[in-house]
């Protein structure tokens, strides 16, 4: 069965909650639509459907969604929306975890470990919903700020005759603490970095990771995806490897071959691309 936006007359009527949930996120991901066997439509609606149990996560080919997202970004190589990218990464990682949890046998709870997995699955669901709730309200914050910025408050110096009556200012700290505040303010700020640190995985720097993968491939000439992701610290690192490879492929730095469906995917270094877009992958919005 294919669910698509067209199945709901006005896109909202049949699934009010889903539509509401798709509202704010749709602001950044407005243009990004996925085209899967089971679903066609905006990325945000896909999330809403999964959250509402209208769509089974196990039926969603996440790799395909990722593929489409990379392609979507490539079309817009000149005006990257980094917010959109980081949002996608966060959600994709959550979906990946969710799917992994789902694919495990869950009919019978045999031991503590299974139980823990089940709980983890529910936790992921709840977290996704919760994150979306805050995301939605964050969009109303932006709207309110924009509206409020159109009114200017009166804030002018007192007429001189009243100025000397002003009460004292309380600094609330001594010279030493003041110097500490100054030192912190004047110290060079840490370079902004992309917020790739998913809750389940140790922080991974996409740029570093992409370079690492490129270096490994350049040296080895050829490696399987399995080899490249062996020893990955978590699902997130696998996603990062995947993203890096897609980007390298787009640049013509690698080629892929696979003997049969679901067999090992081999990556061969062709080394004729430049790595500028890999570098671009990694600029930050974390400010």
């Amino acid at each position, binding site marked *: 069965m294919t669910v698509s936006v067209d199945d709901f007359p006005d896109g909202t009527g049949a699934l009010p*909650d889903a539509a*509401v*949930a798709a509202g704010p996120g749709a602001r*950044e991901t407005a243009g990004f639509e996925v085209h899967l066997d089971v679903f066609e439509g905006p990325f945000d609606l896909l999330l809403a459907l999964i959250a509402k149990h209208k769509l089974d996560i196990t039926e969603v080919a996440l790799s395909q969604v990722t593929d489409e997202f990379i392609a979507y970004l490539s079309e817009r190589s000149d005006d990257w929306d980094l*917010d959109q990218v*980081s*949002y996608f990464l*966060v959600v994709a*990682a*959550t979906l990946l975890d969710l799917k992994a949890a789902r694919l495990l046998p869950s009919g019978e709870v045999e031991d503590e470990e299974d139980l823990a997995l089940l709980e983890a699955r529910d*936790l992921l669901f*709840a*977290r996704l*919903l*919760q*994150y*979306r*709730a*805050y*995301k*939605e*309200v*964050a*969009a*109303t*914050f*932006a709207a*309110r*700020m924009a*509206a*409020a*910025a*159109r*009114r*200017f*408050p*009166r*804030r*002018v110096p*007192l*007429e001189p005759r*009243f100025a000397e009556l002003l009460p004292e200012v309380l600094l609330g700290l001594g010279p030493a603490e003041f110097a500490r505040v100054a030192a912190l303010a004047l110290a060079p700020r*840490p370079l*902004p*970095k992309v*917020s*790739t*640190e*998913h*809750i389940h995985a140790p*922080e991974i720097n996409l740029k570093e990771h992409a370079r690492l993968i490129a270096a490994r491939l350049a040296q080895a000439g050829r490696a399987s995806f399995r080899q490249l992701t062996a020893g990955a610290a978590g699902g997130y690192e696998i996603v990062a490897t995947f993203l890096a490879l897609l980007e390298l492929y787009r640049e013509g730095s690698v080629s892929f071959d696979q003997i049969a469906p679901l067999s090992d995917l081999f990556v061969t270094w062709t080394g004729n691309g430049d790595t500028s877009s890999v570098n671009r992958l990694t600029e930050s*919005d*974390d*400010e």
Partner: protein
Amino acid sequence: MSSDHSEPEHTGGEGEVGPGLRASLEAILLVADEPVPVVVLAQVLERPRNEVAAELADLAGEYVNEGRGFDLREVAGGWRFYTREDCAPLVERFVSDGQEVRLTQAALETLAVVAYRQPVSRVRVSAVRGVNCDSVMRTLVLRGLVEEAGTDKETSAILYRTTTYFLERLGLASLEDLPELAPFLPADIEDIEDENARA
């Protein structure tokens, strides 16, 4: 002090007892550089709070009806003069200050979590957003939208809350005027957050 006895500090000698409540409010709000709570106005003017509140509402309505270039609004717990919304293009042309910078999506989301969960630690905010929020939180503090609010007793992590300036930026009278969080938020979300925070 009741308001019906004569007040010697008033100057008008021709049987006047000084400016009326309305003019007094206008004068005081003209010099205020931040929102003034009704209770403060009531104190200074020695009038009952509800009388002051009613007069402020009247005055605000009057400005609107007269099509004045300013109006009175209740924001961040107090009353303050603001320019009228449709004068914005002209005022922008005149005011030399830089415009307020738009917040990034990351900053808005972090701000939203702080607003609804305050006081809250960075770890808890990070748990909700699924990404580390340290540098975003620092930006929010730098912008004056968020401030430190002591430490958690158990973990001794620094807690954060929104500022009065946050209310001003959003044009809200108080935190109670924050929009409702989405109704589909699961009821046991608090527990989830706690687990996250402890993890």
